[in-house]
C-alpha cells in the first residue's frame, strides 16, 4: 500500500529528520511535500490531499491546531480526510490535551521507537479505511478536535456586555443594535457586521468580540464567524455535504464548521 504524507514543520532540519526517520520506518510512504509554515501547510494539504499529515504545533502563520481547524472547515468530502499527527517539542498543556482527546502526537526530539508505534497505528487505520471497514475517521477527528478546543470565551466580568455596535460605513459611523446583527464574519484585520440592511466593518478581533457577547444568543459557527441565533431560519447540507445556515432577512448562507455543527443538530 502506497501512502502519501505531508510534513508541516518550520524548522528545516527537523522536517528533514522527520522525513528521514519516516523513510526508514515506513518504506511505502511518500513524503509529497514539506510546508514551512501553517498557511502553506493548509494550502498544500488541500492541493495534494495526503493520507497522513504531520503538523508541528508551534509554527508561524498558523499553529498546528489552527491549521487542523481550518482544514476541517475547508476539506471537501470527495476524498478522505488525512490522518493527523501532531508534533510538539515540549508543551505540557498540549500533550495533556492530546492524551485526553486520544489524538496522535509525537514528541521532539523524535524517538524512533515511539514514532514506529505511531506509524503502526497509522498503517492499521489506513488499511481499515481502504477495506471500507471504517469511515475516513472525519467524525472521530471532529470529536477529538472539539475536545481540545478552548470553550467559548466566557464574558469577562469587568467588561460591559456590548449593546450597540459602532461600525464604520464609509465616512459614517452606524450605530447597530445587537438584535439587528445577523452575523459577524472575520476577514484579515476586520470583522464584517452583517445586518438585514447591509454590511459594516469594525476593527476588533473575533475573540475580543465573542467575550463581550451574550453566549445564549450569539454562537460561534466557524473559525471566522459568529451568528445571532435569533436570525437563523434553518440549517441544511449543501450539495458538497457542508452544513450551512439560512438567515432571516439575508439572501446569503453562512457555512458552519464541522467543529460547531453539533449545535445545529435536530433535538
Amino acid at each position: 500500500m502506497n501512502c502519501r504524507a505531508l510534513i508541516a514543520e518550520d524548522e528545516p532540519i527537523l522536517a528533514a529528520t522527520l522525513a528521514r526517520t519516516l523513510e526508514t520506518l515506513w518504506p511505502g510512504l511518500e513524503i509529497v511535500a514539506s510546508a514551512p509554515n501553517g498557511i502553506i501547510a493548509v494550502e498544500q494539504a488541500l492541493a495534494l490531499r495526503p493520507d497522513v499529515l504531520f503538523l508541528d504545533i508551534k509554527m508561524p502563520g498558523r499553529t498546528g491546531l489552527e491549521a487542523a481547524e481550518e482544514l476541517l472547515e475547508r476539506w471537501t468530502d470527495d476524498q478522505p480526510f488525512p490522518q493527523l499527527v501532531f508534533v510538539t517539542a515540549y508543551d505540557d498543556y498540549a500533550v495533556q490535551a492530546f492524551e485526553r482527546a486520544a489524538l496522535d502526537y509525537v514528541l521532539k526530539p523524535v524517538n524512533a521507537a515511539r514514532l514506529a508505534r505511531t506509524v503502526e497505528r497509522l498503517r492499521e487505520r489506513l488499511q481499515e479505511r481502504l477495506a471500507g471497514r471504517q469511515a475516513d475517521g472525519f467524525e472521530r477527528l471532529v470529536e477529538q478536535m472539539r475536545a481540545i478546543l478552548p470553550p467559548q470565551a466566557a464574558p469577562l466580568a469587568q467588561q460591559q456586555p456590548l449593546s450597540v455596535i459602532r461600525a464604520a460605513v464609509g465616512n459614517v459611523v452606524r450605530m447597530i443594535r445587537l438584535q439587528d446583527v445577523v452575523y459577524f464574519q472575520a476577514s484579515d484585520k476586520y470583522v464584517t457586521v452583517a445586518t438585514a440592511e447591509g454590511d459594516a466593518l469594525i476593527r476588533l478581533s473575533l475573540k475580543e468580540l465573542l467575550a463581550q457577547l451574550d453566549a445564549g444568543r450569539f454562537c460561534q459557527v466557524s473559525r471566522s464567524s459568529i451568528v445571532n441565533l435569533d436570525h437563523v431560519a434553518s440549517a441544511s447540507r449543501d450539495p458538497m455535504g457542508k452544513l450551512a445556515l439560512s438567515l432571516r432577512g439575508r439572501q446569503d448562507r453562512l457555512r458552519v464548521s464541522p467543529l460547531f455543527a453539533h449545535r445545529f443538530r435536530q433535538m
Partner: protein
Amino acid sequence: MTTLTSSLPLCAPPPARLRRMADDLGMSVILSAWSAVLITLVDGRPAELYQQLVYAICIGVVGMLVLDSVRLTFWDDPVRRRRLMLPFLALLILMAPVAHYLGCMLGGLLLGAGWPDLSGYPKRMHVQMILLTLLGISATFLIIVNRERMQRIQAERGEARARAEAVERQALQAQLRLLQAQIEPHMLFNTLANLQGLIAIDPQRAGTMLDQLIQYLRATLGATRAETVALADEFAAIDAYLGLMTVRMGARLAYRCHLPDALRRARVPAMLLQPLVENAVLHGLEPKVEGGEVRVEASARDGRLEIVVRDTGLGLESGGQKGGGIGIATTRERLRALYGEHAALELVPAAPQGALARLTLPLEAA
C-alpha cells in the same frame, strides 16, 4: 595580635572617647544645675541660687571628670567591668567627699570668694552635702551608663535593619537573576531535536551546534552564580544563542552583533541582554512567516553604556509582546534594584517594522 589589641579598651579611637566624655560632662552639668535649683528651693534662699549653681556644677564636673575617665578607660570591657565592680563602687564613695572638697574650692575661686574656709573639713553641714554629692554623682553615673546602653541598642538595631535590608536586596537580586536565567524547555527540546537531526545529516555542523549549546547553557546557568560579567562574555552568550536559533530557523533568521573593543571589558549584570534578545526572536521573528533580522549594538555615550536590541519582527502590537512580557518586566526590576534611577529600559516600535529595546546604564569599567 590585632584581635588582642583591638579588644583592649585603651585602643578605642580617642576622638570617640573624648566625645563620649564631653557628652557625659554635659549631662552632669545639667543634673548638677537641677540639684542646685532643688537645694535652693529646699533652703528657701533664692538669692543664693547663683552661688549654688556654681558650686553644684563645679562639684558635679570634678566628680564626673574623674569617675568618667576611669569608667571610659577601664569599664568598656565587659569582663573587666565585672571584676572592677567593687573597686569602682569604692572609688565612687571615696569620690563623693573629694569631689565635694575640690568642687567647693574651685567654686570659691570662680566666685572670687577666695579660698573657702575649709579648715576642719568635713564639718557637720558638709556631711549632708557630701551625701548629697554621692547621691548626685551616683545618679548621674547611672543615667550616663544607661543612656550609652540605649544608644548602643539603637545602633545595633539600626545595623540589624540595614543588614536585613541588604540581605533582602541580595535575595531579590538572586531571584530576579534566576528568573532571567530560566531556560525555556521548548527552546531546549527543539534545539536538542535539531542536534539529533544534524548528527545524522551533517555531523560537522552538529559539532558546531553542540559547542554553541554548551556556551549558551554555561552562560545561562552560570548567571545564577555570577553577579556581573564582562560585556564581551554577555555578547558571546548572545552570539551562541543566535547561532543556535539560526541553525533552527534557517534562512528565516539573520543577526548582527556589534561590540566596540573599548567596551569589551565593561561590567554588566549577568544575563541582562539575553532576555531582550530572546524576546526579539521568540515574539518578533519566530512567529513571523518570512522571518527577519536581529541587531545587537553596544555604544558608550556621555559615560553611559547604551545597548540596543532591534528586530524586524511582528512588532509590539501583535503577538504576546504587548508591554514586553515577563523578560522585560524582570529586566526593569533588576535595573531598579541595581541602579535605581540611573538605568533605564525602553521598548518602542522600530521603523519600518519590528521592535527596539534600548538599555542605558552606568558605564562600569573592569
